[in-house]
């Protein structure tokens, strides 16, 4: 099923035309023109999603979990020092893009599957970014961008992340952001806010998802830790301050997710061997990481294996995995599936699909228009006058952007709108996913008949609101946007019916 926002030929075509004309206007300034033309290509490329957060929030680990391979280097200390792009390609390759000078290829070094970046004499300060080409199905629709931690001890490293996500001199390279946090800290709020400062940008809230990463640690690695973490995520979701800053908050145990998706047969056997011990033996063995790896603590498993296990799973992962095996998950595939589910990764992937992937054309169009707007503002040209009007017209007029703007508005706490109406509008505007069944609150496989029924009801509901003499001007305008969304869905249903 194609969603209304996916099939936005009008918007995409208009944005493309604007970019082409802008490139024409700025043809005498090669850098700007190249940038603008690059943006045209970007419209056909995968969505760029940055993984951001404070140091040690587990950004690289989560990236690996999303890709399903252990490619990004992870380490106990501060690890990612330069912005690194991971994109799908036919063959693996690492390219270094320096701040000045020509890009050059780096040797492809892998240890235990992980990539190792040898900057070949360049310091992290001199590197603009690393580009990793990697054949992967998971990267086909999204290019993932790993960023250095913010508020890290070396201020320059965090400066590089901020430059990527909220640059002063050009629109953000990323179309959307997954923001990782361990708790909601004052600095997290400040950082999230910095995405929102771009003047004229419709609703940055729409392109940000917050992840409560390392979620297992919130409950100190107890078996019920994820229950606790989900509760925390739920509380954050309902907090007005957070609602204003991001779409939603999801709890994910990143390390477990990464390991589960890359589970090896040897690891499964070791876990199964562990699970044979009695309950109390296992409890005492898993009391602390030190105990688990101590020389004589297990009769058959060598200390080296145990060391590797705890590095890969963490105590929570080990506790959970052995427990699951005892409960009857005796096949690696079944265990993997359950661990991935328990880690919260499935939930995150669903959220990413509904919030980012289905909306990628709009998000990319937004990035493109922001670039043009900025260029026009910073390098004003007499002949660009008409172009500026066009950009403004699209930003203000395109229904897709109106939807996003209204969605952001709905998240403000002080709106005079009943809670029911608010969540109804949020859903219809695509706040819970842009696909039609999501908007109508139906199952993904709902038949056209029930879809039509739901749309018609919603349309009537909001038309009443739009026409109510009691509504003030702002409320009427809001209702009209929702009506328009409903009309769009109805039109699509009719079109689909005709074509089939």
């Amino acid at each position, binding site marked *: 099923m194609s969603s209304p926002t996916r099939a936005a030929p009008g918007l995409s075509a208009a944005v493309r035309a604007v970019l082409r004309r802008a490139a024409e206007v700025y043809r005498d300034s090669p850098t700007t023109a190249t940038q603008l033309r690059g943006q045209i290509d970007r419209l056909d490329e995968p969505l760029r999603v940055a993984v951001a957060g404070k140091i040690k929030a587990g950004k690289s680990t989560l990236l690996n979990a999303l890709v399903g391979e252990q490619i990004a280097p992870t380490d106990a200390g501060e690890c990612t020092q330069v912005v690194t792009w991971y994109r799908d390609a036919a063959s693996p390759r690492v390219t270094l893009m320096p701040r000045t000078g020509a890009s050059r290829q780096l040797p492809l070094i892998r240890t235990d599957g992980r990539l190792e970046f040898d900057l070949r004499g360049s310091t992290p300060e001199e590197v603009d970014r690393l580009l990793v080409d990697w054949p992967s199905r998971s990267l086909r629709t999204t290019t993932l961008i790993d960023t250095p931690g913010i508020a890290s001890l070396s201020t320059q490293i965090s400066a590089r992340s901020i430059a990527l996500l909220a640059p002063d001199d050009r629109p953000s390279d990323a179309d959307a952001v997954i923001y990782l946090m361990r708790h909601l800290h004052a600095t997290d709020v400040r950082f999230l806010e910095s995405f929102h400062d771009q003047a004229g940008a419709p609703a940055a809230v729409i392109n940000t998802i917050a992840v409560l990463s*390392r979620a297992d640690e919130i409950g100190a690695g107890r078996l019920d830790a994820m229950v606790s973490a989900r509760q925390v995520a739920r509380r954050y979701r309902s907090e007005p301050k957070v609602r204003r800053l991001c779409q939603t908050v999801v709890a994910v145990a990143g390390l477990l997710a990464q390991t589960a998706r890359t589970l090896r047969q040897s690891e499964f056997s070791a876990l199964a061997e562990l699970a044979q011990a009695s309950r109390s033996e296992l409890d005492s063995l898993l009391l602390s990481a030190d105990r688990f790896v101590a020389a004589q603590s297990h009769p058959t498993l060598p200390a080296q294996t145990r060391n590797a296990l705890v590095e890969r799973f963490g105590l929570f992962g080990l506790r959970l995995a052995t427990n699951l095996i005892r409960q009857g998950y005796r096949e690696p595939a079944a265990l993997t599936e359950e661990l991935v589910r328990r880690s919260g990764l499935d939930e995150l992937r669903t959220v990413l699909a509904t919030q980012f992937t289905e909306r990628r054309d709009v998000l990319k169009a937004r990035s493109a228009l922001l670039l043009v707007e900025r260029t026009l503002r910073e390098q004003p040209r007499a002949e660009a006058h008409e172009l500026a009007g066009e950009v403004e017209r699209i930003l203000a007029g395109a229904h897709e952007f109106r939807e996003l703007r209204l969605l952001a508005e709905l998240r403000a706490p002080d709106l005079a709108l009943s809670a029911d109406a608010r969540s109804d509008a949020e859903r219809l505007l695509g706040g819970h996913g842009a696909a039609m069944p999501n908007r109508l609150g139906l199952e993904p496989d709902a038949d056209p008949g029930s879809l039509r029924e739901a749309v018609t009801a919603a349309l009537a509901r909001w038309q009443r609101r739009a026409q109510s003499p009691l509504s003030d001007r702002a409320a009427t305008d809001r209702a009209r946007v929702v009506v328009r969304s409903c009309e769009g869905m109805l039109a699509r249903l009719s079109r689909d019916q005709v074509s089939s």
Partner: protein
Amino acid sequence: MSTVGPPGLDVVDRLIRLVEAGDRRDLLQRLAHTRRRLLDPTVRVLVVGEFKQGKSLLINALVDAHVCPVDDDIATALPTEVSYSKTPTATLVRGVDGASDAEITRVQLSLDELASYVSEAGNPADRQGLLRAEVGIPRQILADGLALVDTTGVGGLSSVHTTSTLAALPTADAVLLVSDASQEYSEPEIDFLRQAMKLCPNVACVLTKIDLYPQWRRISELDRVHLAGANVEADLLPVSSTLRLHAMRAEDKQLDDESGFPALVRYLHNAVAQADRLSRRSVAHDVFTVTDHLAVSLRTELQAQRDPEGGTALMAELEAAKSRAENLQRRTSRWQQTLSDGMTDLTADIEFDLRDRMRQVVRTGEAALEQADPHAIWEQFTEWLGQQLAAATSDNFVWANQRAQSIAQQVAVHFAEDGGELLPELRLGATPTTLDAVPELAAPHADDPKLVGKLLTGMRGSYGGMIMFGMLTMLAGAASMFNPVSLVAGLVLGGKTLRDDKHSRLKRQQAEAQMLLRRQIDDVTFHVSKECRDRLRQVQRLLRDHFSEVATELQRSLIESIQAAEKAAHTEDSQRQQRINRLNAELAQIDTVRQDARALLAAPGNRS
């Protein structure tokens, strides 16, 4: 030695009786102060850190009781002081910061009820006007007067809370910085440590949750590197509160060792022992000084009685000493000059520093307002401003505190050099000079004392024969009365709201916002610098009063000595021997008190 009350109390009480008998009431005040200090032997250890690092659980594991509420989500919102009592008690203290005792109310409640007040859930943003909670619990580890203070970590170290924590540091005996083993130190943590080291010489870093993180050894190494890089010399103690609690329940010695707690307990014991040594030393010192005062006239008379002919030389010396003591009381004396000049300079410097910092804030703030729509960023901006102002005032505060202490030290040295001591030759061989018997206090970083550590340790120890310990508590008391943060927090844009006029032009709005910013900073600068000036004046007055009092005591002792010597010349020969015997007996009495005081110095730290 008496078993009731702390050691030394008995000595002080005996001395008080002697002083009363000898009719030297002027010395009583000093002894009363000593006695008060002895009766309140609390050793305060602040537990600080970013939130959700396991501070509360650490305290629970230390005392093996559920005294601080622990939750996966909700953070501690109210500072909790845990100390010894025979039966478990819990008290809520309500009032406003800096309020006098009369304005503070205390409510007793049960330990179970306490959780709802202390955690953020029960007491969001501390709306109930609570100052702190106090918990008493019968535990051996607390029996020596150790009090653990669980601070709020809400918002982390970078927020306004930091500054209020900083303001409490000068009154703390030790600080534990808690950070979990999930990651190495962050910038705010290192910044905090750097500042904390300047305010309290006894700082230890606790690495928690080592049960959960296999790589804790790597993290602790990285942390040590960061500490060394920041010139912070503090112990790093890796612990696991969970293992400790398990170990206590299972009475498993090996597990307890694995938890790393024995080292932490040792550290706390050392802190207590050090505070105890300090306290014994200062008690002994007070006793020595007062007995010196008592003895000087007796000895003078004794000498005069034994050798009536040699009286003239003695009298000359006494007269000279007396005139020196009188000089010390003049405003033109060197220590007075040092004090008033130092404080004048300091006030000017601190004010300049504050203005300079504020100017930076204005510049950055104006630049930010220049580039954005003030309405869109106003909330964020005011928050930022609050943080900047808090940071500026807290840095200023740390610096002022340090400088004030160094002035106090300088004044003390000049006072002592210019005759602020009883004449050493009058001590007549029989008793050693006051400080000979005092073992050198081990500095926290004995082998390579950093300037600051040295300064503070030196001050807490001794200077030129004067008593700095009580002085320091007084200074700290004066300092903590001034809490720059509550002041700033109260002022942040209070009443100044940005007019929401949708029709006015962006430029005008920006100009208006910048004007608000400047006015706000003017207000804060005015209030903070006034407060700072008042505080420094208070410190100056404290120092002046203290040293003037010492000078008066000195003068009085010398006058009495002179009178005693004169009296001796007129004693009839028949009574002379009797008088000598009497003097000897009195001196012997004083000497036993001194001996007992000396024993205090030698005894190992064991209060109970």
